[in-house]
């Protein structure tokens, strides 16, 4: 197990798009080796998935990959990554997911041989464990489906394996809606970190057996849920910003168990992971508006090694089918970043990306490279996942209070009230995990969670 107790990147000027300390080489791409590549993700239009519709499903995926690769070749991208994010049915019926993996692999191989297009394939099986409520995290049919899906997809041609794991979400959702900082800490710093270790031991084992890459996880179900709720005005933006930073220790566990990146595109905690581990990251922003809105469309580019669209439905737009449109948008976005790098202006362009967002939303502010470095250093200085997540909350809140005090961004009266309220909650957090867990076990709804599945 690799232990991360210091930063791999400690100078903010080294936390920049396209390059990292430990590039990942795959299928002719050197991710983090100086070039930013597009990572394209796509999904089905409204349709059911079943035995009778699988011929259409196969054709949809083949067509999406084929047309996107053709456009990528026409635009002379230096390389690309396709991501196949499996829907629940395609994970449960693992053979179906594997068939689609093989189909996309075949298209990538075809464009490599016919057009010289370097391309790699990331496959992300669905975390299906909460189809049973409360979720069975380590046993049962859903877990077996997931393991089999990883195995068959790795065998069928995936280069990289990822997952958006959901351990702890059964407690986190309610904590999020209640503005309950200790609840979120218990979900992320205790439950999720334990689950990540269990899940990633499996993913790393499968990847090792098939000689493919154990890439990385995403706290999508936690921090992106918070971001979307904040964007709708349901929860405070300062709360969403704090939750984002609190996911870092959880997502870092994947690397401690053997993941090597690139992290998942929707893991906006990626810059922290890159600063800590030195491995490359995938990010998404403005070009992911096809999937969801966000306040971090430009600043998310600052440290990206892959630049993604998150996901887009296969529907017809005026220009082309939507995945092909996304491919073109990503190609141009990455082309500009790569030209800046070639001219030695990467940091200058990065700073424009940063400046354009950081003063408008606290969620953007915590992604500022200097803030990332400062917070990441404080997080890894702590010895355990619980203490790291606790420190993340305390440090993020202090950074936000200081920055607001200095006029770095504006906050409404309601947001200011929550910054004070969350700070008060954070100051009460115990310094030992045992006493904290004891307090939480007395107040959480134990009907929602199987504690034994987390080793508690």
């Amino acid at each position, binding site marked *: 197990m690799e232990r991360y107790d210091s930063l791999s990147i400690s100078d903010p000027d080294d936390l920049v798009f396209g390059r990292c300390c430990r590039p990942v080489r795959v299928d002719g791409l050197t991710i983090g080796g100086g070039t930013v590549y597009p990572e394209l993700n796509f999904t089905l239009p*409204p*349709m*059911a*998935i079943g035995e009778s519709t699988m011929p259409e499903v196969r054709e949809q995926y083949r067509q999406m990959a084929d047309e996107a690769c053709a456009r990528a070749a026409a635009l002379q991208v230096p390389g690309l990554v396709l991501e196949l994010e499996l829907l*629940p049915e395609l994970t449960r019926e693992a053979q179906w997911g594997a068939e689609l993996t093989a189909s996309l692999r075949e298209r990538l191989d075809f464009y490599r041989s016919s057009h010289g297009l370097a391309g790699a394939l990331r496959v992300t099986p669905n975390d299906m464990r909460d189809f049973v409520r409360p979720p069975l995290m380590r046993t049962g049919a859903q877990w077996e489906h997931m393991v089999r899906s990883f195995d068959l997809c790795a065998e069928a041609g995936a280069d990289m394996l990822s997952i958006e794991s959901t351990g702890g979400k059964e407690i986190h959702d309610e904590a999020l*809606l209640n*503005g309950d900082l200790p609840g979120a800490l218990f979900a992320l710093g205790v439950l999720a970190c334990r689950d990540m270790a269990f899940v990633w031991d499996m993913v790393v084992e499968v990847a090792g057996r098939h000689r493919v890459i154990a890439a990385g996880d995403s706290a999508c179900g936690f921090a992106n849920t918070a971001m979307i709720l904040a964007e*709708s005005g349901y929860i405070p933006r300062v709360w969403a910003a704090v939750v984002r930073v609190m996911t870092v220790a959880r997502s870092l566990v994947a690397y401690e168990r053997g993941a090597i990146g690139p992290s998942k595109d929707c893991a906006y905690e990626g810059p922290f992971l890159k600063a800590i581990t030195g491995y490359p990251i995938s990010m998404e922003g403005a070009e992911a508006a096809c999937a969801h809105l966000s306040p971090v469309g430009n600043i998310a580019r600052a440290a990206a090694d892959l630049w993604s669209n998150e996901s887009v439905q296969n529907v017809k737009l005026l220009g082309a089918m939507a995945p092909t449109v996304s491919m073109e948008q990503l190609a141009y976005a990455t082309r500009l970043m790569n030209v800046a790098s070639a001219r030695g202006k990467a940091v200058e362009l990065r700073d424009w990306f940063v400046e354009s967002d950081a003063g408008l939303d606290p969620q953007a502010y915590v992604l500022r490279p200097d803030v990332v470095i400062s917070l990441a250093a404080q997080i890894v200085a702590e010895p355990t996942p619980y203490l790291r997540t606790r420190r993340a909350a305390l440090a993020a809140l202090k950074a936000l209070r200081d920055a607001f005090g200095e006029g770095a961004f504006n906050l409404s009266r309601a947001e200011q009230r*929550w910054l004070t309220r969350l700070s008060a909650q954070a100051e009460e957090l115990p310094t030992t995990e045992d006493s904290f867990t004891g307090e939480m076990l007395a107040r959480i709804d134990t009907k929602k969670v199987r504690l034994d599945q987390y080793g508690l």
Partner: protein
Amino acid sequence: MTVIEELRQAVIDGQAKVAVAKVTQGLEEGHSAETLLQDGLIEAMKEVGRLFEEGEIFVPEMLVAARAMNASITVLKPHLIADEVRSSGTVAIGTVQGDLHDIGKNLVAMMLEGSGFEVNDLGTDVPPESFIDAVRSGADVLAMSALLTTTMTSMKEVVEAISRAGLRDRVRIIVGGAPLTSAYASEIGADAYAPDASKAVRKVHELLAGALPGALPGEGRADGAL
């Protein structure tokens, strides 16, 4: 301040114990259960809704207020039953089969409860039969949620199953979720579509008040029922 005003303020502030005490005091002073419900609790939650829509508060504050209201209703309920006061209506709500996303659904359920509706939360991954059972059990409105393009198609199956069961004229159907549109809702024969939780509550009020007779604007439902 009158006891009704104090009750309203306690709910707005999320002070459950104070709200319960004010309900008890109001009953002792001779206020009817319906007055305490309508002028105290429902009016308080309307104010909470207004503060939320204007960005003055967030969902966590609404939840605290809703808990204060629910604690008060527990005290008030025997009196409401004795006085034969009816609720605003019953809404059965669930995320469709194959889909586990429930934050949006939970928000709608919470806001409906805060508006005085009785809510039957069917949970996630709900098969059509469970929706049908809920209608048979007396739901006035069926609310369905889906977040995936591959599960939203289940909504059509539910609407059709309800029609086949001969229950379509007994329930109004509202749908929501990221991949949905008003046009899709109309296409599958739903009565309303809501893009977010606040609008969902408003639409349910309109549906039960008959303000959306028959179908979504622009397209009628095939069976014309309502």
